[in-house]
């Protein structure tokens, strides 16, 4: 029996918003020329790029000249970290970041450390929330060039105390970079940051578009070889049709965000409550209250994460996992590790504008049987 597909991995990539599709197709016809040139086709491309930047800046609450389109959220995060550190190397070479940053930020930190800098990972509690005391101490230490904090965890959904963390940074005179990939287009942005990055395929735009915003007055210097495009912040020709689609879908997603939040957050609450009751020996992780409206994570004791993903896939459910067996490095998710929660049998479910209550109900109806089946197969029932 083949099950109809239910896509529950929006935190990796949300399905393309219809507005993005429409804008993409139109811009493929209209936006292929180089916006930097001096002829009619280029002027049309320039208008499209300017309009996309204007619209995106407005949604993010920044000025158009503070905003650059990058080739991905990862590229934006790399630029944010390395550029923030480069501009303040005279102050010091220390990066402070939470222990639960996205791997893009951690990999940039590794590069910085390999080049002789230092990085200080600030712990989180069992719910995945930043330890604010440790954070304040860390940013106050001498020689801190930049602080990096994810707005909300992409793995467990816990919203971070960005305003408080930003206040500590302001007191210490340290610029704050926020990775807002899971928040933009879904929830209001926190205040107090100097640099921000996001990623279009998280909000219903196409893959391969990121945004990098650097507030006026922030010391930030491009870590890349020189290129004058995109305010000199990210090299190369932008994928203009994709950028146009990203901007159009961000506007649509932001306009619909409050409505989606009030529709999806109760579904997430329902998953949290029902999974905890109906699946034995399960740990539902992340902050139950201060959380993203679309993302929920749990771990099933004695279950192999990869086997669980495959079993769910066979029943039509697309989800993600932080278990080590599902990662190419065979290491458990550093986020689950930092929280000290069970890492095997881990499932992340993330909802989007096309997710229906019926999808969630079907998932909830089938999950206990799927987990029970895997446990029976492994001979771990009753342990």
């Amino acid at each position, binding site marked *: 029996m083949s099950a109809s597909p239910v896509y529950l991995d929006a935190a990796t990539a949300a399905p393309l918003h219809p507005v993005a599709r429409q804008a993409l197709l139109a811009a493929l016809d209209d936006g292929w020329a180089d916006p930097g040139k001096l002829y009619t086709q280029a002027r049309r491309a320039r208008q499209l790029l300017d309009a996309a930047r204007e619209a995106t800046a407005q949604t993010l609450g920044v000025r158009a000249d503070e905003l650059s389109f990058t080739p991905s959220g990862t590229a934006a995060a790399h630029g944010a970290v390395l550029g923030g550190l480069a501009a303040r190397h005279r102050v010091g070479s220390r990066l402070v970041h939470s222990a639960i940053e996205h791997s893009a930020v951690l990999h940039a930190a590794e590069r910085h450390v390999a080049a002789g800098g230092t990085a200080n990972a600030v712990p989180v509690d069992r719910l995945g929330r930043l330890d604010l005391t440790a954070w304040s101490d860390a940013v106050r230490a001498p020689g801190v060039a930049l602080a990096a904090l994810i707005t909300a965890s992409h793995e467990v959904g816990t919203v971070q105390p960005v305003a408080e963390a930003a206040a500590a940074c302001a007191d210490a005179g340290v610029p704050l970079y926020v990775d807002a990939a899971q928040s933009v287009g879904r929830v209001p942005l926190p205040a107090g940051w100097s640099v921000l990055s996001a990623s279009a395929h998280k909000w219903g735009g196409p893959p391969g578009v990121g945004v990098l915003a650097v507030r006026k007055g922030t010391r930030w210097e491009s870590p890349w070889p020189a290129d004058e495009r995109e305010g000199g912040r990210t090299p190369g020709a932008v994928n203009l049709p994709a950028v146009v689609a990203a901007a159009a879908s961000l506007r649509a997603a932001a306009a619909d965000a409050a409505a989606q939040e009030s529709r999806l957050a109760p579904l997430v609450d329902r998953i949290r409550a029902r999974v905890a009751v109906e699946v034995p*020996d399960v*740990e539902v992780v992340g902050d139950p209250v201060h959380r993203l409206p679309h993302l929920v994570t749990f771990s099933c*004791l*004695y*279950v*192999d994460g990869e086997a669980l993903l495959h079993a769910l896939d066979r029943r039509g459910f697309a989800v993600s996992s932080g*278990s*080590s*067996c599902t990662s190419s490095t*065979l*290491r*458990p998710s550093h986020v*689950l*590790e930092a929280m*000290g*929660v*069970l*890492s*095997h*049998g881990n499932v992340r479910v993330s909802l989007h504008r096309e997710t229906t209550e019926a999808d969630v109900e079907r998932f909830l109806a089938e999950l206990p049987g799927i987990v029970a089946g895997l446990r029976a197969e*492994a001979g*771990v029932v009753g*342990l």
Partner: protein
Amino acid sequence: MPDEVLDCRGQRCPLPVIAAARRMPEVPVGTVVRVLADDPAAAVDIPAWCRMRGQEFVAAITGPDGPAYDIRRAH
């Protein structure tokens, strides 16, 4: 010193956790079982299992046999 050793080297998670969960009810209360496990996930999952099951996680150590985790049967 542990009272006994469970060698789970070479096993991927959740197998070391399952091995511990099988063994603990068989030993007397108060017994310390050392789980040798080189899968990095064990460092997270063995303490988490202890917390979920109300058993005592004594310590993580790195000895001549690689990473090891001591658990005391608490009840």
